[in-house]
């Protein structure tokens, strides 16, 4: 259960603010200290636990603060803007704001944002954004206009997503809302149009956000009294285009629809939001905490003296205006569970003892909860979501999707699928995806012309699938010889049976080069070592020596004579790739897949001799490439490792030795492998010999040290 504690007024004297309430409450660089900016001329630094002010600063008569004071966490200084354009920076020791650093800017500032871990940002009213340092370096720099003429910024928020700062701001123009997401690592500004789900036009009154793994969840409180949720992708597919965002209703009638002011919303954690406003048209205003997962009201607190429709939330404190006083309400939110939502959770421990067990959940602690609150302050524990037991409010999107699959056109399925993937992920997401694929495959079997390739690709790339979740997918792709899907599956699925892996290998080896030419294959595993193919001759040969193996060395047997006759040809063979780049990429996918020797061997025997020779040649080529550098690795992002290469060489030879030995083309390859193994054996035996001699030396050395069986030494004890 969420629990609102008894609040207390922060200020003994009423704030010198009008009905609008304070301009802002911001964290300072010390925990428990907050900067309160009233809408007039004053900034006050409060220590919340002591309920007393630590410092107060005012601008001159006639000036007016237009942007709430923030703290620069990197320097500990405070920043405000007064009269829209004048920036002031000061610190705790300064007394008079008139005498502190001042910079006059060329455009009007909407807000300054500052969070821990990055430099403050200045958002201008025209939508442009500047880092504080860059701005101070040249205060009069020209500020561009980003948003259109009549657009007005309504709400803005700055937060970190995976250690990258992201600014989100929402503008309004004639009742239409636009969401801008500015990412600073890539300097990409994405614009979205917010489609309001409800029929009649109504005004959005408050926003709040939280960050998940893939989406920023934007919650809005509309004038119809409902809370809506919108998911904004963190990594948009086409950042430049204007995209649309759909709102989905999360909670109904949390506040009275007629309330025109005094309404605000804050996300507390994954499952809880705080809403400020009157629940019924006639009632007094309330602060209430709702559980969004179970859609239940957790607790509420009446504010009889009215409030201003502003709500700030930091750590474990909610700040709001109550009457004329800024009030702090500490709260506790426990992890939501059905029992808790129904009010049936047992409270065995004393209320005074905070005895929540400290579990670290590696799965959810990473990305969640970073958004609307400062994660460093939030001490609450994020725990694995319980398997959802609540009933779905409407027909689940998945059933709709499954129905669509059975009848609609390929194009339509694709659109629906994209929509479905953009929604919030439920715990059973992976099984739904599995069902969708099985549904698609079923239809494919029924209608031979139906092959929703794009959909399948998209589904495989959700990273949640495994072979056992969608049996039949790979078999189907094998039937269609769709190497692209096969490659994706090999890369993504952890549990492919060896027979299927081997079937893939067969397809990859047998497919014609011209067919391969037209397919789009992920080449990242080969891109870095395939290009400089022709320059590697000399390097290749020195590397053999480095690894103790030289093809030129011919003191072993008569077979080597043949090799010596055509040294040029040997060099060519060893340094040029025997397969095309695309085929190489496919084969690498096979090399990466997991297997068990015992199960793989019988299937490998079925590979035709020519193909296994080709594969061996390719593996040998990879080995030579590996030995070009001292670390014995291939360049590139995800190349096969040396041990994978060697294991596959051994496996192939084990399975096909009698066949390969009969093929004339493979003779040279086998000879070089044989010589390689022979040299390795001799190296190992030499190394063992060296080890033994070193051990003897060590023994001698020890004896020398220990010969001194008796000595008289001087020791001073201190």
């Amino acid at each position, binding site marked *: 259960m969420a629990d609102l504690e008894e609040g207390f007024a922060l200020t003994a004297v009423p704030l010198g603010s009008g009905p609008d309430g304070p301009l802002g409450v911001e964290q300072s660089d010390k925990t428990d200290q907050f900067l309160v900016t009233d809408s007039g001329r004053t900034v006050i630094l409060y220590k919340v636990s002591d309920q007393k002010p630590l410092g107060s600063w005012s601008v001159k008569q006639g000036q007016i603060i237009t942007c709430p004071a923030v703290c620069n966490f990197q320097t500990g200084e405070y920043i405000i803007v007064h009269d829209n354009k004048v920036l002031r920076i000061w610190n705790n020791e300064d007394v008079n704001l008139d005498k502190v650093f001042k910079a006059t800017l060329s455009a009007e500032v909407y807000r300054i944002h500052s969070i821990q871990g990055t430099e403050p940002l200045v958002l201008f009213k025209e939508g442009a954004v500047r880092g504080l340092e860059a701005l101070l370096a040249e205060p009069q720099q020209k500020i561009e206009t980003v948003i259109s003429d009549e657009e007005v910024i309504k709400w803005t928020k700055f937060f970190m997503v995976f250690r990258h700062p992201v600014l989100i701001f929402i503008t309004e123009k004639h009742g239409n809302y636009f969401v801008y997401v500015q990412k600073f690592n890539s300097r990409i500004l994405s614009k979205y149009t917010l489609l309001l789900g409800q029929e009649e036009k109504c005004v959005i009154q408050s926003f709040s956000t939280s960050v998940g793994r893939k989406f920023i969840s934007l919650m809005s409180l509309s004038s119809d009294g409902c809370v809506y949720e919108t998911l904004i992708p963190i990594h948009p597919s086409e950042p430049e285009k204007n995209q649309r965002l759909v709102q989905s209703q999360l909670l109904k009638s949390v506040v009275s629809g007629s309330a025109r002011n005094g309404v605000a919303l804050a996300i507390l954690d994954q499952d809880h939001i705080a809403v400020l406003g009157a629940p019924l048209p006639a009632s007094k205003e309330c602060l209430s905490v709702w559980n969004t997962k179970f859609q239940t009201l957790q607790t509420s607190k009446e504010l009889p003296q009215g409030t201003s429709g502003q709500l700030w939330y930091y750590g474990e404190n909610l700040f709001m205006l109550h009457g004329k006083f800024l009030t702090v309400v500490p709260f506790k939110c426990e992890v939501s569970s059905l029992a808790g939502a129904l009010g049936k959770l047992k409270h065995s421990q004393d209320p005074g003892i905070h005895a929540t067990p400290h579990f670290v959940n590696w799965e959810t602690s990473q990305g969640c909860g970073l958004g609307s609150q400062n994660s460093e302050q939030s001490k609450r524990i994020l725990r694995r979501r319980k398997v959802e037991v609540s009933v779905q409010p409407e027909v689940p999107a998945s059933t709709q999707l499954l129905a669509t699959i059975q009848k609609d056109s390929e194009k339509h399925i694709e659109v629906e699928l994209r929509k479905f993937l953009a929604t919030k992920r439920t715990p059973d997401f992976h099984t739904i995806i599995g069902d969708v694929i099985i549904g698609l495959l079923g239809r494919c079997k029924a209608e031979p012309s139906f092959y929703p390739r794009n959909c399948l690709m998209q589904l495989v790339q959700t990273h949640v699938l495994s072979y056992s979740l969608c049996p039949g997918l790979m078999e189907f792709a094998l039937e269609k010889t769709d190497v692209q899907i096969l490659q994706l599956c090999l890369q993504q699925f952890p549990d492919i049976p060896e027979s299927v892996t081997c079937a893939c290998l067969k397809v990859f080896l047998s497919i014609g080069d011209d067919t391969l030419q037209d397919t789009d294959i992920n080449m990242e595993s080969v891109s870095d070592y395939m290009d400089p193919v022709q320059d590697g001759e000399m390097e290749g040969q020195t590397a053999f020596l480095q690894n103790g193996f030289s093809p030129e060395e011919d003191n072993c047997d008569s077979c080597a004579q043949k090799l010596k006759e055509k040294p040029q040809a040997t060099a060519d063979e060893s340094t040029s790739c025997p397969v095309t780049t695309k085929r190489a990429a496919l084969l690498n996918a096979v090399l990466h897949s997991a297997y068990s020797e015992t199960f793989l061997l019988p299937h490998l025997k079925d590979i035709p001799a020519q193909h296994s020779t080709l594969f061996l040649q390719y593996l040998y080529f990879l080995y030579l490439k590996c030995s070009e550098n001292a670390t014995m690795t291939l360049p590139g992002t995800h190349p096969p490792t040396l041990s994978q290469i060697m294991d596959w060489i051994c496996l192939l030879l084990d399975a096909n030795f009698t066949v390969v030995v009969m093929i004339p083309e493979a003779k040279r390859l086998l000879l070089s492998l044989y010589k390689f193994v022979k040299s390795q054996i001799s190296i190992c035996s030499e190394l063992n010999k060296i080890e033994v001699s070193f051990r003897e030396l060590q023994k001698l050395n020890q004896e020398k040290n220990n010969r001194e*069986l*008796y000595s*008289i030494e*001087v*020791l*001073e004890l*201190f």
Partner: protein
Amino acid sequence: MGEFNVHRVRFFNYVPSGIRCVAYNNQSNRLAVSRTDGTVEIYNLSANYFQEKFFPGHESRATEALCWAKGQRLFSAGLNGEIIEYDLQALTIKYAVDAFGGPIWSMAASPSGSQLLVGCEDGSVKLFQITPDKIQFERNFDRQKSRILSLSWHPAGTHVAAGSIDYISVFDSKSGSAIGKMLVDRQYMGVSKRKCIIWGVAFLSDGTVISVDSAGKVQIWDSATGTLMKNHLVSNADVKVQIWDSATGTLMKNHLVSNADVQSIAVSPQEDSFVVGTAEGTVFHFQLVSVTSSSSEKQWVRTKPFQHHTHGVRAVAHSPTALISGGTDTHLVIRPLMEKVEVKNYDAALRKITFPHRRLVSCAKKKQLLLFQFAHHLELWRLGSTVATGKNGDTLPLSKNADHLLHLKTKGPENIICSCISPCGGWIACSTASRFFLYRLNYEHDNISLQRVSKMPVFLRSALQILFSEDSTKLFVASNQGSLRVIRLQEGGFTHPRAFQPQSGTVQSMCLLAVSPDGNWLAASGSSAGVHVYNVKQLKLHCTVPAYNFPVTALAIAPNTNNLVIAHSDQQVFEYSIPDKQYTEWSRTVQKQGFHHLWLQRDTPITHISFHPKRPMHILLHDTYMFCLIDKSLPLPNDKTLLYNPLPPTNESDVIRRRTAHAFKISKKYKPLLFVDLLDEKTLVAVERPLDDIVAQLPPPIKKKKFGT
């Protein structure tokens, strides 16, 4: 604190014998360890793993099996064909019973503890009933073809699994008939090896039998069907752990753990984990874990390998919180299972016990003689000397090297229990389990003549501890059944041994003795009871030091003050004033403030305490890894101060030095230490035994290839 000339002695050529068996007793939390020379040691795991008792070895008594039965009775059996019960109070062998089956290879007590089963060379399995004061032969099980190397009872006591060569038999324990046979594959990696020896079996309550064998396999069998369930190959040398189901005798699983023998196995009482030891020195931990997170099906999985041994692990035990292993390399290793240890304390640390927790060296200070005690002989050495001086860290040139004066071999197969040289150097006494030896030494220039004092009194047949008085006129002997005697020594003999009045009703044997330098007081301590102080003149008990929970590891009485200093196995040190019959002020202060946490974390007990001849405030004590000179006049260290400060503060002023100085002057320069004493005010003797020297005398370990495997 001062400068000392340290005689650094490394010629004590002591080699502990290899560990053959370990047996853990859950009730008393004690561990019995038997060594290849027949010595049996008892470690108290609750008292910081202190070796509180030992039974001396015997050449003809190679122990092959060791087990606890009927609560806390300890039995061993060996290649001489005898079953032996030990008297843990009197520290003697209670009786030996011949099983008449040739050498005994294995022994197991029934789960109820009332029956004892031995496996013999002739293939017989013999059942003995344990009566309150003896054991009685009851029945033979069906005779098998070859020797029975391992035995294990089903936890319900209904069946017995016996490992032989190439097969495992399952017996019905009621009728003694063989009801199943599980054949072990001799082959290893397709190559037929020599015979496959089942070194260990374990019977689980669900009918599963786990076997370890010389082919390096851990096999899990289903005894109901006799099928192999799983096979783990654990070692490259010789160990297979096989888990069988005994009802049918099928192998359920086969873990090939090694190419070397898997020589030992022990299962946890909860049957959720077991441990095997291999001839390569690796110990593998197997755990019963769920196959998948959702299903309840569980499987034995090899989870952790530990390599704490250089040589083969001959014996393993599984206590609720730790894996215990011992082997040819003579170390006893106690490896706590971190998931079972709740608090980070003494028990959470890895323990390696190499040296006995008692003194093997005694010293005649005036003559600068050292007496070393080996299993079957004594060595007497005279320390060398130097005329040079030097500064801290210097090695001084020797003007005279150390001399090996005497090599004294005892007759008979028994190991020496204790030995002592008198402070004047004129007497040497030692004892085995059945004979007491007293020698008179005469020094004429460089020649030594030795004369055994014959006609020892009848009662002086063995001693647990011997001590000479400071003036070498009296000999104190503690022997079994708690008896304590004093003998007055004279030229060429002794007169009228007299006994101290024993505590009424105690049979507790005294293991540690200390006599005051003025010869008036004798302190004696048993393995668990408190310390008793006797008045030597009146032969009467003077007082008893208040009992303390942990066993005493060392005792000494200070000159002049007659303060008794007592070290306990939990690293506490007390000082007790004998004349005042109370703890001294200093001891109270120490207890009030508490010892430094690093002092309490040391993991070897203090084995010797002595005093500075000139400075009464100084106490010298040592364990295996450090020696410490306590200056009682200085302030005690608290947890914030540096306990070990090995280097002098070179350019700091005397003020700082004085401010940071504390009572504990510790040196870790010499280790492992077997003995440290003050010869005179400026001279220390430190007997070191480097581990490398021990390893050099062990048989070479199985060589493992580093390259090309």
